[in-house]
């Protein structure tokens, strides 16, 4: 039984964005049309979701000040601060 989706607000580099409760951080970003949120250390190439289940660590992002969190694993919550290179 699906209830009507609850809305939450997350901050993408301090810009408030509406999202549906229960989504992963990766899903919130992809829903905003953002496919990459960090660049690689050596070649500066964009990266976002890849394995989607926590194995590859490609989707690392800073959440509430904590760096290197997996966007595919973390559930977005109201007022969460998500910081990344969204122009990656």
């Amino acid at each position: 039984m699906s209830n009507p989706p609850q809305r939450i607000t997350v901050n993408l580099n301090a810009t408030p964005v509406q999202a549906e409760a229960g989504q992963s951080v990766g899903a919130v970003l992809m829903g905003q049309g953002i496919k990459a949120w960090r660049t690689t250390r050596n070649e500066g190439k964009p990266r976002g979701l890849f394995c989607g289940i926590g194995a590859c660590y490609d989707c690392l992002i800073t959440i509430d000040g904590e760096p290197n969190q997996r966007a595919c694993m973390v559930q977005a919550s109201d007022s969460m601060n998500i910081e990344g290179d969204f122009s990656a």
Partner: protein
Amino acid sequence: MSKESTSPFDVAVIGAGPAGLAAAVAAAERGARVVVLDAATQPGGQFWRHRPESVEPDPEGHGHHGWKTYLDLRSRFDAAISTGVLHYLPNTQVWMIEREDAGRFVLRLTPATGTTIEVPTVRADKLVSCAGGYDRQLPLPGWELPGVMAAGGIQAFIKANGTLPGKRFVVAGTGPFLLPVAANIAAAGGKVVAVCESSSLTNWLPHMGAASGVPGKALEGAEYAAIFAKHRIRYRTRTVVTKVVGDSSATAVQIAKVDASGAIIPGSERLLEDVDIVGFGWGFTPQIELAVSLGAETRIDADGSLVCVADEKQSSTVPGLFLAGEVTGVGGAVLAVAEGYVAGASAANGEQPKTSTARQIQRHRRFASAMHQAHPVPEKWDELLTDDTLICRCEEVSHAQVTEARDVLGATDARTMKSFTRTGMGWCQGKVCGYAVSCLSAKGTTDENAQHASLTSVAKRPVATPLTLGEISTLDSREPHNL
């Protein structure tokens, strides 16, 4: 957790997917005190991944197979939690296992998300690893572009979020798993431009005997045929994606026909434009690091994956360590549940499996073996690679660097390759590139054991998951907080 739970558990179960749930329930229902550790925030594993119960409390299981089995296991799992015999630790990953006096397992834990861990250590007399697996990947030009995902990652995204990661999809690789991924995309409203299967379905013909032993799979096949017809999904066999095209993200794929060896048929290349998500799956890689770190014996399965040896009681070659599900050989959820029940019962009281269960497991193993033989990784998969194709995504090691290290420096196994080129030294610790690096390193070697040795070196990870230095340095101070 209550005071009584500070003593060691009888059985620890790693994973709460099909195998882990069955193992936990079987052990708890035999009176064992059980602890279940799982990376996800709710039970189900990848196969029965579903929307957070906080927003969808009673999921109906649309798009899932065996949902009734899940609901049955889940209600027994929850019942065991409520009577206090089963402790469930979600959002928890095991990063190391040690053995102490009397062979007791000591499991060191880290949070899957966030930075705090309530219970940093658990102890148990018996251990059942049901760690599952993840999509096996083969590098190709453009696979590092955003928009390229694991096929299973797309499915996990849909199951967990109820939304799609993009609009127009190509799903490629090999194996029956590509079918439910495409079906889930279509059911969620996405356009599947093509499913590219490298094998020919006539590969199944020599294996019809094994397939007929598991008639449910034929029904699933018919179901997918209907879904593909309804959504007009092109199922292209003997077809591979030769490169992903795009600037800052995937925008198109080039596909081509291949022969039985996986060699491109000249002139068959064509471009599929307007594609924003590409999903690849070449079977699965079982997560055997923890079992290997305890010394469990391994073998190469029919799909070329390194898996752990288990006997008819799902016992590994390490006393006290039991295994169920993909870690013993990729075979799907029905087999995983059957093995889980056996492993949980064996761990709890040494029980022998019933003859009917043993037969069911054998039938599904035969089916899995037929499936693997019908859907091999193409022998010439690496012909697609250009010099600058990335092999290791984390450390950005190119194909040219890998071949040079092999041909000039003699790096003919994954371990040596790692020390010369840094393949597998990044965040994922070789989980993504390990199979490909093993193949490329051992290429040209005539030694039959080369690939086994190479894959074994990839699976040897004393620390199973990335940690902060702080977590390692606080090992001793964790002792007073032990469960």
